[in-house]
């Protein structure tokens, strides 16, 4: 359904996509794996016709829908109204008609999303991503491209998503799944393509490869052993002054983080939605890093930013690059540098590795561990259970705005599933 040949694309000094050719057939699920900034999203935006390539040709049969990592929804409107924006032509209608049609559209996609009269601003991140998916699938695209769709989902929601992907592919749609969660890639895709630094570096049928081989292909320059907390299944003992709050998205995690932000201004805060709450896209890296500083002096700030870029290995052209031009993982590193570098006594990290690749995730985990070893008390709010078990010495479950008692990891491993589902 999509045929790309010899695609190149350059942004300023960086070659984002460098002579890439690939093909996705009807009914096939292809995973596109790679580090943050490897060029996956750029390539798929070109494939979907959102941006033009500098060189190469794109052949597309039928419509291609790209579901973005960030949301393209109108917060002030309801679920039904958002669907009406993209799916209804210009005509007179009523709220009731819009809502009935919205329910039909949702039912047709087989995705569960209740109460279409809720405003998007009230939805959890997981529900928003479902709505984006519904919008895309309801248009019956010949090719469906999903950019890091699981990064905001709970394990259950991820399972639902995979079922949807398989069904859509079964109906003849070509599906491209951008991810760096390798176990997921192997679970759902038939073919895996690995990108690094703008090029395709590995391609294989999913049954002929494994997590270790893919991880090596993604980050070949780094150590081959690659023990990444959580992602590759190994369990590192949690640290006593890291406490994790786990739960299904939308059970009060965002409200808790916002309350802590307002009550503990001295603490370091890593917000869950980095493009909305973490980064000022229009300001430079240096300016973003200085937002919490008492003084501002352009030269000192640039020097500080250069140090942070080196220390946190932020992939950037320099301190004066616009933060909005960085990839998601590098934006997260900027936030981390700003929040952790002052060595705050307390750190509240909400979904700190959402959407990050293996290397960046490992880096974030190392930073949080180091801060904890340094004496900071860390509250990790996450929907990634592996992450919670990998880092925390104490685990609590949040369900419908209430926290469970604090548990040791051993106790939590027995009870957490039931507590998250609200059946314990």
């Amino acid at each position, binding site marked *: 359904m999509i045929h790309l040949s010899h695609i190149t694309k350059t942004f300023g000094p960086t070659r984002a996509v460098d002579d890439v050719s690939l093909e996705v057939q009807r009914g096939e699920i292809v995973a596109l794996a790679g580090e943050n900034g490897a060029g996956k999203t750029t390539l798929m935006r070109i494939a979907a016709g959102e941006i033009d390539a500098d060189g190469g040709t794109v052949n597309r049969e039928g419509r291609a829908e790209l579901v973005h990592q960030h949301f393209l929804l109108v917060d002030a409107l309801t679920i039904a109204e958002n669907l009406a924006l993209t799916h209804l032509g210009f005509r007179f209608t009523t709220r009731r008609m819009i809502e009935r049609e919205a329910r039909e559209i949702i039912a047709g996609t087989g995705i569960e999303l209740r109460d279409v009269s809720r405003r998007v601003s009230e939805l959890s991140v997981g529900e928003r991503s479902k709505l984006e998916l519904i919008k895309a699938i309801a248009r019956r695209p010949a090719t469906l491209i999903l950019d890091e769709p699981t990064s905001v989902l709970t394990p259950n929601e991820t399972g639902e998503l995979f079922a949807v992907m398989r069904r859509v592919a079964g109906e003849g749609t070509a599906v491209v799944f951008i991810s760096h969660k390798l176990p997921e890639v192997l679970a759902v895709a038939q073919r895996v393509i690995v990108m690094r630094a703008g090029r395709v570096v590995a391609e294989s049928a999913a049954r002929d490869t494994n997590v270790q081989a893919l991880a090596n292909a993604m980050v070949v320059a780094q150590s081959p052993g690659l023990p990444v907390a959580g992602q590759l299944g190994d369990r590192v003992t949690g640290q006593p002054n890291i406490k994790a709050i786990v739960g299904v998205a939308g059970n009060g995690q965002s409200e808790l983080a916002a309350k802590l932000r307002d009550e503990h*201004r001295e603490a370091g805060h890593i917000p869950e939605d980095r493009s909305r709450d973490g*980064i*000022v896209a229009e*300001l430079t890296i240096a300016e973003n890093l200085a*937002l*919490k*500083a008492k003084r*501002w*002096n352009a030269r000192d700030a640039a020097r500080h930013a250069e140090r942070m870029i080196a220390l946190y290995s932020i992939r950037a052209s320099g301190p004066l690059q616009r933060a909005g031009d960085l990839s998601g993982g590098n934006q997260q590193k900027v936030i981390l540098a*700003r929040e952790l570098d002052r060595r705050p006594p307390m750190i509240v990290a909400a979904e700190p590795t959402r959407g990050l690749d293996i290397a960046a995730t490992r880096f974030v985990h190392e930073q949080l561990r180091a801060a904890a070893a340094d004496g900071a008390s860390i509250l990790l709010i996450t929907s990634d259970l592996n992450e919670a078990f990998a880092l925390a010495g104490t685990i609590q479950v949040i369900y419908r705005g209430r926290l469970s008692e604090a548990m040791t990891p051993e106790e939590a491993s027995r009870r957490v599933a039931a507590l998250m589902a609200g059946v314990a």
Partner: protein
Amino acid sequence: MRRFGVAVLAAASAVLLLAFSGALFGHSPWSLLSILGSGSVGSRFALAGTLLKAVPLLLTGLSVVIAFRAGVWNIGGEGQFIVGGLAALVASRWGVVASLAAAMLAGAAWASIASAMRLWRNAPEVLTTILLNFTAIHLLGWSVNGPLREHAAQYPQTDPAGAALPVLGGVHAGIVLAVAASVFAWWLLYRTAEGLRLRATGFNPNAARWAGIRVGAQLARAMAISGAAAGLAGGVELLGVTHRLFERFAAGYGYSGIAVALLAQLHPLATIASALFFGALVTGAGELQRAANISAGLATFGQAVVILTLIVFENVRSRR
């Protein structure tokens, strides 16, 4: 550089449209262009007129730059200008410095009414500042007909202010103040932590809040600084040009500040050039009225063309 190009294009298209639409009244566009030119910068007298108009435009333009950079929509420059003039008049007996300080304080206080309503009841500034303009206009009307009316009680105007700005070569010293204010605004926005936080709040208030900025207080401060600049404009206009208050004292300077700021792409130093351009446009349009009998209201038309051109090109740019 590209933004600069768009601004120049907007200004040029305003001038050309003015000249060619004047052709509808039976004049050749070239003669109208030459009248516009000579009437705004062609003689020492014309140049002084342009500078006199540019001074209040520069200060109200800066007022809008500061507010819009912070993301707070202060449309109340006109009202802040008026209360600035009123305060300057009342305080003028204590000298120029006290008078201008009073003007800034009054402008800041008047703008802060909108901030207070925002914090108290979440009332949008776009509405409250516009409504405060009408309040100020009527306050001025009542003052010049009542308590502040001149002793001769002949016209609805006040007695002359007790102080005046010194005059340097045909132009009052307010021009120095206004240019200094632009440099100050640039320093504030780009060289201080306050300015960094103000800009961050304007670009992304959510991220600003997560970075520990008290967004409500930040907006209130930006509003107060913005109001102070518009108030200062009113004080300078009183002490430098009109010396008395009367009902049409503000003459739309507060609103024109929005066009000045937008043409300057919200940059405080570019605002100097932008204010000079609009000052020349207004002065040149006055000459058009005298020499070619074309309404000076065309200057307002020119402002509209500038803003529309900017909006169209901004839009085209953001879609690429």
